[in-house]
């Protein structure tokens, strides 16, 4: 019995070390979305680009899509911009929400840097952003064909994130019926 008391510290240490070892694999900066696996909350946003139809949540159903939240004041958005332009050219459904600014600013920014969005809506007061749980720009949601959120990327889609996570996920979603 007394002997056990002396062995207890080693046993505890083994538990703690195992916890640390497993814990190292997790990334504390990942913020999972509460929406994962759930349908996109309903929204209908006015147009960013003059003469455009705007963006509604229904319009995103039917095929896998990327929903990208951007703003003209956002520096990191330019990092993922070339990638989004390429995706649109490849036929991927890329939708954009111009977040927390007047649509005219977003439109001017798109005219200057190129427009990667098939569909784009303006969320001037960030209402739709609250429903989506947007914490800042850029942020990207990957949607399956039934309009459910499957992945949330906080921050720019870097080439690494694209290759390791989003590209394989999109391929899987394309294959899903």
């Amino acid at each position, binding site marked *: 019995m007394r002997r056990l008391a002396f062995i207890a510290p080693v046993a505890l240490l083994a538990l703690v070390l195992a916890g640390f*070892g497993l814990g190292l694999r997790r990334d504390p900066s990942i913020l999972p979305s509460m929406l994962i696996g759930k349908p996109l909350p309903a929204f209908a946003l006015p147009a960013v680009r003059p003469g455009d139809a705007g963006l509604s949540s229904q319009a995103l159903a039917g095929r896998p899509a990327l929903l990208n939240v951007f703003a003209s004041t956002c520096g990191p958005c330019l990092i993922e911009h070339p990638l989004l332009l390429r995706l649109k050219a490849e036929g991927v459904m890329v939708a954009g929400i111009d977040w927390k600014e007047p649509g005219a600013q977003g439109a001017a920014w798109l005219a200057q840097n190129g427009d990667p969005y098939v569909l784009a809506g303006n969320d001037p007061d960030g209402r739709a952003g609250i429903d989506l749980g947007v914490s800042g720009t850029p942020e990207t949601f990957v949607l399956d064909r039934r309009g459910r959120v499957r992945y949330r990327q906080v921050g720019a889609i870097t080439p690494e994130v694209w290759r390791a996570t989003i590209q394989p996920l999109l391929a899987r979603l394309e294959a899903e019926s």
Partner: protein
Amino acid sequence: MVAEVGQFALILAFLLALTQAAAPLAGAHRGDLTLMALGRAAALMQAGFVALAFICLAVSYVACDFSVALVAQHANTAQPLAYRIAASWGSHEGSMLLWALILAIYGGAVARFGGTLRETLQARVLGVQGLVGAAFLGFLIFTSNPFLRLDPAPVEGVELNPLLQDPGLVSHPPLLYLGYVGFSVAFAFAVAALLEGRVDAAWARWVRPWVLAAWIPLTCGITLGSLWAYYELGWGGWWFWDPVENASLMPWLLGTALLHSALVLERRGALPSWTILLAILTFSLSLVGTFLVRSGILTSVHAFAVDPERGIWILGIIGLFTGAALILYAWRAPALQSGALFAPLSREAGITLNNLFLTVMCAVVFLGTFSPVFIELAGGDKISVGPPYYVRTFAPLAVPLLALVVFGPMLNWKRDAWPALKSRLAIPAAAAGAVALAVLAFGGWKSLVATAAISLSAWLLAGSAAIPLRRWWAGRASLGRTIRTTPPGVIGLSMAHAGLGLLLLGVAGVTAWQQDKVTTMQPGQSVAFAGRTIALQSLELVDGPNYQARQARFAVGGRFGSHELVGERRAYATSQTTEAAVHVTPLGNLYVSVGDPQDGGIVVRMWSHPLIMWIWTGGFLMAAGGLVSLSDRRLRLGAPARAPARVSQPVPAVAE
């Protein structure tokens, strides 16, 4: 050239550390005096070569040698000289080299000044230290070499994180490391004692100065870190229960427990196996602290230079040393003599209670800090616990412990009696009661918690003052002689406990009466806040050596006197920092921090922090008390205690 010299010095130091590990352990086992002497020589030479490597790195920084990758990543020519030197330990590789350097210095000190130790014990201590040193030097050389070259060399380097460009941060990491690494000596002593199968009063007398030598800089380092966070991070708080802060608090709590239990072991020969366990765990928690900062297992404002790869290495080092030590403990400790008996009311019992509280407090902080890791592993969500958790768990443990602090030194060793104890406690109790009444009269019933806390602090202060005073009163016939012959240890104890009282005073004041206000101000505008009027006089852009700052000048008037305050928001090439404007008085601080421009004015956030400076005064007083105690050991023991005094020499300069 310089970088290559450093590289070779590091490799030689690694080989010497291996020698230092092997020779004295084998020598002690076989009773071979030559091998034991070889261990001492290896320890001294290892200290020399690690110091040479560190100097080489510092020289590369000073000379802005951007062909050294590490220099190019953490310094540029616009950075002031002092911060180029400080950048030597601002990076992962540099801070690990500093770790190894301090370890080698402690090892050298044991070799040089440990002459009065039992020969085999000294050899085994050096051997264990050599093992730890070899592990860290190997880690440096094989995974995080500070001397890697860049080809071609860049023309200009990347600046050091601006948050780290601050006088507080220049001395904060070395002090913390002096503390963390200092506990390696206690660890080595514990493992050596287990190897020898002998733990006695003499062992405790040898180990105590080393524990104290680690505890003093750690106390200073934590206090300084809290002070730095207060004025640099611009949040106006003094303790955030951030994982990295907790990482330094945990070894401090256990180190404090160790300091007390080693006292019991030294005086009465009791608690031997508990003291050994504490010595092992204290150093393990120091390693965990390093792991936390370097691995990125938790998010933290302090987690600079994060890399999971290195986390695995440090985890391996923790597993190896703690695991081996604890297995040795499970095997050898049950055979140790179980020590002397003591009555339920005695100083030994008081210190046992103190140890119990400190250990549970440490466990509470540990669980809180690592809860995100374990909750997520258990399949739960991403949850991290914040200050409310600590308020509910840590505070209820801290309050009774603080109340008990006064009892300890008043108790007699072995056994004591209630009636005598009560008469000794009468004066502190009266002081606490009087202060409680005074605070109630001033603050009313609304501040009942603050009243309780401040009277507890008065209890601590009066109780601490009573220790030397009772002694002097008893010897008042020849007062001069009594004061002269009072051992510094008694004065040190009194100072350290009084420091706790001051700390509590500050915490109580700032928690109960803190006020804050956020507003937008235009030049010429003034606002009323916490009994003062604060006017924004001017707002202009000024240039610093490597940053541009928006500088706001405020004129403050009111019943606390009038003065000027200057706050800055600094924009460095890569990021921004806030230099808060703080007006410090013993009664309380006015803290103004300047934000971003808005509506033609500027966002200003102001806090009134009553009594807050006593928090840090208390922390430094505790460290000073430790220093006074250390000088006592030197007088009584001669040679072995000179070493710790030497290692902790940087402390007084910072404490002022």
